[in-house]
C-alpha cells in the first residue's frame, strides 16, 4: 500500500518535472539575457562599477587602485595623533594648502589653492590670499576662519587653563589646548586678524623662520581643516569662531580645540563620519571607508583647480610583501613595496606589463661617532673615516635593491635633490669613499691610542642590512687598529642607548622632509637629537643663521657649511639614502616615486589609465 502510493507520487512528480522542464528552456534564455545586460551595464562603468573594473580608459568612470600598507585612522593629519604617513596618504589631495613638498623634496607653491607673498622682511610679513573660487566640497567658502583655525591650532598659543601665550614664549610645562603635532614656525607669529569671509590674511612673524613658505603646507602635520565644521560642533559658526579668536574666548576655543583634537579621529566600529564632517578642499573627497580593507576617493566637483584626471582612486590596505602579487593579479594598479632583491626579481618577472620607478628616499643612513665616548680623540675619528668602506657598502647592500643607488656624500642634501652635486663636491665626504687603510693606520698611530681599541657600534636589531654594514666596517677598520664590536640592540634598549649617548658609534637613519626647520636639532651643540657631543662653533653659527634665514637662496650654502664642518671634525659620515620603488601597470600613467614621507598619492590627481 505504502509502496504503491510512493510510486504514484513519484510518477506524478516526475511528470510535473517534465512539464516544467519544457518551460525551463525559455526561462534559461531569459536568465542568460539578464546576465548579458548586467554585464554590459557594468562595462559602461557607472558609479556602481567595481574597482578592478577598469571601464573605458581615460574617461570618466574610471578607477585606479593603489596599495598601501598602513591603515587610515584620522582625518586631521595636523594633530599629534593624526600626523602620520597613514593619514597623509589619504588626504594628500583632499586637504590642500598653500604649498607642498614635491616628490624630490623641493618646496613648491600651490598656486591653484591660493597665493602668498612676502611683503616685508623686517618683521617677516607674509600675505596669504585664497583663490576667489575656493570652497569646501559642501559649498562653504574657504577663508579667514579656516586660516585662523589652522593658526590657532598650530601656534601653541592657547593653553588648557585658558591662558594665552605670547609669540616665541613657550611655557615651561606646555599644556596646549590644541594637540598640534608641531608648533614650529607659527609659534613665532603674531595673531593674524581678519573678518569672517575675508579671502586674504596677513601673517606677521615676531622672529624670522626658515620654513616660512611651508607654514600652511599640504603635508604630514600642516593641512588646513574646515573651520565651519569645528565651529558647528562647538555650537557656533565661523563668525563666532573668528570672534572667539579675536577676543581669546577660552570657553569657545576649548570646545573648538576638543573637536579639533579628536572630532576627526576615526572609529572603525562607526565607519566613515558623515560627509558634512569631512568636506574636501582638493581634487578628491573621501567617499567611502571599509575599515581594514579600503578607502575610496572620488572626484570633488567643487574643486576649483585643475580637475583630477581619474574619477575614483581606491586605496587598498595590503601588506608590502603581498603587493606584487596583487599587482600581478590585477587587483591593484599602483604599489609601493619595499625594494629588495626578492621584490625586484618578482617585479622583473612581470616584464613589460608593469613599470617600476626605482630610486632613493629621503631617509639617510649614517654613522655617528660619539665625541663623548670612544671617539673623543680627533685622530681616532679620522682613522675611522679613512677606513670606512662606504662605496662597498652601497655596492654590496643597496645596489641589489636599487640598481641606480649612489654613495651619499652629504648629510643635508639627498642625491635626488637639486643642488646635490655641488653640495656633495663641497662637503668633503667624497674623500672617504674607498677605504684608505694606510692612511687610517697612520691616523690611528698619531692618536697615541694603543692598538685594538674596542669600538661599540650600536644599531637596531633585527636588521640584517645593518649587521652586514658593521661586518664590512669591521673587516676594514680592524686592519687600521680598531677592534670593532657589533652591538645589535632591540628597539627599546637601542632607543635608550642612543638618546643617552651611550655608544662609541651609532649606525642609523634619519627620515627627513625636505624642510629645514628640524635640521638644527640634529647638529646644534645644544640640539636635542645631538647625543654624540658634537660641538663646533662653525656648525652652531651656520645653523643659527639657517633658522632665521627667510631667503631660500641662502639655505644651500649654510647646509654645505654644516656638511663641511661635520666632515672636517670627522663627526659623522653619510652612507646611502634608503631605496624605494613605486610600480604600476603599464596602462597607468602618472605615478612617480615620492622620496618624502607623503607616499605616491602626493600626485594622484595626475594618475590616468591610458589603455
Amino acid at each position, binding site marked *: 500500500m*505504502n509502496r504503491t502510493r510512493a510510486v504514484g*507520487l513519484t510518477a506524478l512528480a516526475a511528470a510535473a518535472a517534465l512539464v516544467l522542464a519544457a518551460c525551463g528552456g525559455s526561462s534559461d534564455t531569459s536568465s542568460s539575457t539578464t546576465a548579458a545586460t*548586467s554585464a554590459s551595464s557594468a562595462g559602461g562603468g557607472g558609479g556602481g562599477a567595481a*574597482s578592478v573594473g577598469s571601464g573605458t580608459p581615460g574617461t570618466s568612470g574610471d578607477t585606479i587602485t593603489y596599495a598601501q600598507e598602513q591603515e587610515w585612522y584620522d582625518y586631521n593629519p595636523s594633530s599629534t595623533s593624526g600626523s602620520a604617513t597613514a593619514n597623509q596618504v589619504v588626504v594628500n589631495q583632499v586637504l590642500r594648502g598653500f604649498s607642498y613638498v614635491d616628490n624630490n623634496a623641493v618646496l613648491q607653491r600651490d598656486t591653484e589653492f591660493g597665493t602668498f607673498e612676502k611683503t616685508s622682511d623686517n618683521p617677516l610679513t607674509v600675505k596669504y590670499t585664497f583663490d576667489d573660487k575656493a570652497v569646501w566640497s559642501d559649498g562653504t567658502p574657504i577663508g579667514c576662519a579656516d586660516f585662523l583655525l589652522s593658526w590657532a591650532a598650530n601656534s601653541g598659543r592657547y593653553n588648557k587653563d585658558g591662558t594665552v601665550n605670547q609669540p616665541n614664549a613657550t611655557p615651561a610645562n606646555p599644556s596646549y589646548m590644541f594637540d598640534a603635532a608641531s608648533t614650529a614656525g607659527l609659534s613665532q607669529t603674531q595673531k593674524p586678524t581678519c573678518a569672517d569671509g575675508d579671502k586674504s590674511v596677513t601673517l606677521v612673524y615676531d622672529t624670522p623662520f626658515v620654513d616660512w613658505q611651508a607654514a600652511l603646507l599640504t603635508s604630514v602635520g600642516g593641512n588646513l581643516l574646515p573651520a565651519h565644521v569645528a565651529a558647528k560642533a562647538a555650537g557656533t559658526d565661523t563668525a563666532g569662531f573668528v570672534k572667539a579668536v579675536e577676543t581669546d574666548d577660552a570657553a569657545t576655543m576649548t570646545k573648538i580645540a576638543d573637536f579639533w583634537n579628536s572630532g576627526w579621529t576615526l572609529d572603525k566600529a562607526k565607519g566613515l563620519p558623515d560627509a558634512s564632517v569631512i568636506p574636501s578642499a582638493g581634487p578628491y573627497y573621501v567617499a567611502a571607508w571599509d575599515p*581594514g*580593507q579600503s578607502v575610496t576617493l572620488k572626484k570633488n566637483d567643487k574643486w576649483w583647480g585643475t580637475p583630477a584626471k581619474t574619477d575614483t582612486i581606491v586605496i587598498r590596505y595590503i601588506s608590502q610583501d603581498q603587493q606584487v602579487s596583487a599587482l600581478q593579479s590585477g587587483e591593484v594598479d599602483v604599489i609601493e613595496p619595499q625594494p629588495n632583491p626578492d621584490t625586484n626579481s618578482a617585479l622583473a618577472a612581470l616584464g613589460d606589463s608593469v613599470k617600476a620607478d626605482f630610486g632613493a628616499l629621503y631617509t639617510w643612513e649614517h654613522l655617528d661617532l660619539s665625541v663623548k665616548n670612544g671617539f673623543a680623540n680627533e685622530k681616532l675619528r679620522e682613522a675611522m673615516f679613512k677606513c670606512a668602506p662606504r662605496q662597498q657598502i652601497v655596492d654590496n647592500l643597496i645596489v641589489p635593491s636599487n640598481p641606480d643607488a649612489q654613495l651619499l656624500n652629504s648629510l643635508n642634501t639627498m642625491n635626488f635633490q637639486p643642488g646635490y652635486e655641488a653640495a656633495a663636491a663641497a662637503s668633503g665626504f667624497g674623500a672617504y669613499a674607498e677605504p684608505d687603510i694606510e692612511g687610517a693606520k697612520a691616523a690611528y698611530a698619531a692618536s697615541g691610542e694603543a692598538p685594538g681599541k674596542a669600538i661599540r657600534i650600536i644599531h637596531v636589531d633585527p636588521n640584517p642590512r645593518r649587521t652586514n654594514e658593521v661586518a664590512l666596517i669591521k673587516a676594514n677598520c680592524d686592519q687600521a687598529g680598531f677592534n670593532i664590536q657589533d652591538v645589535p640592540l632591540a628597539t627599546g634598549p637601542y632607543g635608550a642607548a642612543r638618546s643617552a649617548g651611550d655608544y662609541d658609534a651609532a649606525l642609523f637613519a*634619519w627620515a627627513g622632509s625636505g624642510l629645514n626647520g628640524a635640521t638644527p636639532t640634529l647638529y646644534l651643540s645644544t640640539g636635542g637629537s645631538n647625543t654624540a657631543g658634537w660641538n663646533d662653533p662653525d656648525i652652531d653659527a651656520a645653523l643659527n643663521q639657517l633658522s632665521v634665514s627667510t631667503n631660500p637662496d641662502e639655505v644651500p650654502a649654510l647646509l654645505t657649511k654644516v656638511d663641511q664642518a661635520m666632515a672636517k671634525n670627522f663627526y659623522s659620515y653619510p652612507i646611502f639614502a634608503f631605496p624605494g620603488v613605486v610600480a604600476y601597470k603599464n596602462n597607468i600613467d602618472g605615478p612617480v616615486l615620492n622620496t618624502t614621507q607623503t607616499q605616491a598619492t602626493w600626485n594622484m590627481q595626475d594618475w590616468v589609465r591610458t589603455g
Partner: protein
Amino acid sequence: MAPFIIRRLFISFFVLLGATFIVYVLVASAGDPRNALLESTDPGKANKIAAMTRNLSLDVPIIPRYFAWLGGALGCLIGKCDLGNTASGAPVSGGLAVAMGSTLRLVVFALVIAIVVGVSIGMITALRQYSGLDYSVTFLAFLFFSLPVFWIAVLMKQFLAIKFNDWLKAPSIPPWVIVVTAVVAGLIAAGVVGGDRRRRLAAFGGASVAVALLMIYFAVTDWFAEPRIGPVAMIAMSAITAVAATALFAGFRSRIVLYATLVTAVVGVICYFALDSILADPTTLLVVGLLVLALIVGAGIGAAMGGLYRSQAVKACMLTAFGCGGLIFASQLLAALPAYSAKVNGVVVATIGATTPNFSGNFWETTLDQLGHLLLPTIAIVLISIAAYTRYTRSSMLEVMNADYIRTARAKGLTERTVVVRHGFRNALIPITTIVALDVGGLIGGAIITETVFGWSGMGKYFNDALKIPDPNAVMGFFLVTGTAIVLFNMIADITYGFLDPRIRLS
C-alpha cells in the same frame, strides 16, 4: 549540569584573571612604544611622545596601570566596557570589533568545511585501514600538516588565482588534464569502495570513465566559459543526493526511505525550474527563508512517507532537501559568474582582501565576490586543519571499531552501516569534540599568517600589529576575546560530551 557549568565558569574566571595579569606585565615590559619615535626628525616629536604617554598611561608604573586597565575591563561584565585606548588614541573596542567580525567571517566557513571533510576522510580511511587510499591520505595529511602557510599561500595565489583567472578568460582543457583527472578520480573511487580486486577494478573503471566523459563534455561545450547546472545535471545530482542521504541514514533494506528521499529530490527539481524568477535577485532573508522552508518540506515528506522508519526518513529527507537547495543555489551562482567576471575584470578568484572595494551587484554577484575572496584563505586554513582532523578521526575510529561493543553489535546481526554510523562513529566523535573546541578557540585568535598574506585585517593581524608597537591595551583587548573564547569552547566541549555519551551525562 548547572552546578558543573557554574563551577567551571567560576574557576575559568580566575584563570582568565591570572592570565590577564601575566600577559599585561609581559607586554608592558616588552618594550616602550615611544621608542619608534626616537629616530624621527619630526618637529612634533615631543608632543607625540607626550600624547602616547597619555594614551597608554605610560607614566604610571606597570602594576597600578594593570589594575586601572582591569577596572575598565571588568566593566564589561556590567555592560560598561572600557578597554582603554590604543597608542594612537583610538578606543580599543572599535578596532577589536571590526577585527573580530572579519576573523569570524573567515574562520567559520573554513572550520565547517574542515570538520565535515576532515572527519569524513578520517572515517573512510579508518574503515579502509592499510589500503592504498589510507596510505595516500596519511601521506597527504602529513604533507599538508608540515607545509608552511605562507609558502602554500604564494603557490595558491600564483596557480589557483592568477593563472586560473587567466585560464578562465579562454578556458580550454588539454587532453592530458582529462587523463590525469580521470585516473586520480578512479584511484580514489577504488580506494573508497574497497573489497576484492574485481570490485575495485570496476570502481576504478566506472569512476574514471565517468569523470573523463564529464571533462570531455566540459571541454566540448566550453562549460567553463559559461558554467551552469543544466536540467539533466540537476536531475541526476538530485537523485544521487537522495540515494546518498538514504544510504547514510537508513540503508536500502526498506525502500520506503528511498522513496521518500526521491520524492524530496523531485520536489527539489521542480523548485529548480519554478524558482528561477524568484531567485533572479533575492535578498539574503529570502534565500535563508527558502532554505528553512526546504528543510521543513523535507521533514514533512519524510514524516508523511516514512511509516515505520519515520525518524530516519525525516533526517534523510531533510538532508536531501538541503542538498537540492544547495544545488539550486550553486546553479544560480554559476549562472551569475560571467556577469560577475566582467564586472571585476576577470579577477574571479581574488588574492587579497575580503571584498572588492565598492563592489555593487545583485545577491548572486555579491555572494560570488565574497566567495571569491574567501576561497584561497579558506583553502589555506582547511588544508592545515583537515590534516589534523583526519588523523585524529582515523585513530579514534580505529580504536572504537576494535572495541568489544562493536563486535557485540555485529554479532547481533546489525548491518555494517548501522554498526559504523550508530555505534562506531558516534563514540569516535568524543575525542574529536575536544580538538574541535580547542581549534575553534584558537582560530578565533586569528590565523595570523593567513590573514596577513591574504589581506584580511582580522584578530591575528590586530594582535600582530599591536605587539609590534607594543601596545598593551590593544594586546589585552585581543587576549580578553581569545582567552574567553577558549574557555567558553572548552566548556561547550564538556557539555557536548554529555550529549554524545550518556555515561558522562549520568555521572
